[in-house]
C-alpha cells in the first residue's frame, strides 16, 4: 500500500514537472521544474530499492548538472529570447512522433502481457533482499564485471572536460 502511494506521488510529480519543463516560457523556470522532475525520479529509484543510485542522482544530477545549466542560463542573456516565440511549427510532427512511440511501447507491453502468462510481467518478482547491500553489490559489479566500461567512462569524462574547456575559451 505504501509502495503504491509513493509510486503515484513521485510518478505524478515527475510527469507534471516534466510537462512544465517543456511548456515554461522562461528558461530559469524550466530549470527549476527539471530539478523537481529529477528529484521525483530519485524518489522512484528509492522506492525501487536502488539507494546508491538515489544518492548519485541527487548529488550528480541535481547538484552538478543542474548547477551547470543554471550557470549557463545566467551567462547567456535570455531576456530577449524569452519574449520571442517559444515553439516552432513542428508540433503536429511532434504529436505524431509521440503517438507512434507510445503506440509501439504500449503494443509491446500489451502483447507481452497477453501472450506470455509469465509472472514476469505481472508483479515485481524478485524479493527486495536480492539487492540488499546495494552499494556493495554495485561496487563489486562495477569493479569486476564492468571494469573496462568503467575505465572507458573515465576517459570519456576526461575528453569531455578538455573539450568543454577548449570550447569555452575566449580565443579559439
Amino acid at each position, binding site marked *: 500500500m505504501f509502495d503504491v502511494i509513493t509510486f503515484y506521488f513521485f510518478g505524478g510529480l515527475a510527469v507534471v514537472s516534466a510537462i512544465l*519543463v517543456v511548456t515554461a516560457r522562461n528558461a530559469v523556470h524550466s530549470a527549476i521544474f527539471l530539478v523537481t522532475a529529477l528529484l521525483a525520479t530519485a524518489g522512484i529509484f528509492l522506492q*525501487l530499492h536502488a539507494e546508491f543510485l538515489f544518492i548519485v542522482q541527487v548529488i550528480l544530477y541535481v547538484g552538478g548538472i543542474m548547477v551547470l*545549466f543554471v550557470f549557463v542560463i545566467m*551567462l547567456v542573456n535570455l531576456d530577449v529570447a524569452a519574449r520571442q516565440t517559444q515553439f*516552432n511549427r513542428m508540433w503536429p510532427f511532434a504529436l505524431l512522433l*509521440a503517438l507512434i512511440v507510445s503506440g509501439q511501447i504500449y503494443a509491446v507491453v500489451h502483447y507481452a502481457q497477453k501472450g506470455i502468462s509469465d509472472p514476469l510481467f505481472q508483479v515485481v518478482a524478485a524479493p527486495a533482499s536480492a539487492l540488499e547491500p546495494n552499494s556493495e553489490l554495485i561496487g563489486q*559489479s562495477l569493479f569486476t564485471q564492468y571494469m573496462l566500461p568503467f575505465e572507458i567512462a573515465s576517459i570519456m569524462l576526461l575528453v569531455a572536460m578538455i573539450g568543454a574547456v577548449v570550447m569555452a575559451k575566449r580565443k*579559439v
Partner: protein
Amino acid sequence: MLSITHYLVLSLALFTIGVIGVVTRRNVIIILMSIELILNAVNINLVAFSRLFGDVSGQVFAIFIITDAAAEAAIGLGIIIAFFRNRETVLADEMDLLKW
C-alpha cells in the same frame, strides 16, 4: 500491487514529453533539458527491470548513463556558450550557418 507495467508507463510518459520538447522548442538550452528528461526515462526502465530480476547490472548501466549525461551537458553547454559569443542567439532555427 505494483507491476512492471506501471514503471514502463511512467517511463513512457517521461520519454514522450522529452521527445515533444526536443522537437518543438526553439531554445537550445531547453532542448538539452528535454534530452536529460529522456535519459531519466531510460534510467527508470533500467532500474525497474533491475528490481524485477534482482540483478544489479541494470543499476550499473544507469550509473553509466548518468556519467554520459554529465559529459553531454558539459559539452553541449560549452557549444552553446561558444555559439552565443559569436551569433548572440540561443534559438535553434537561427543556427543556420551551414545552411546554403
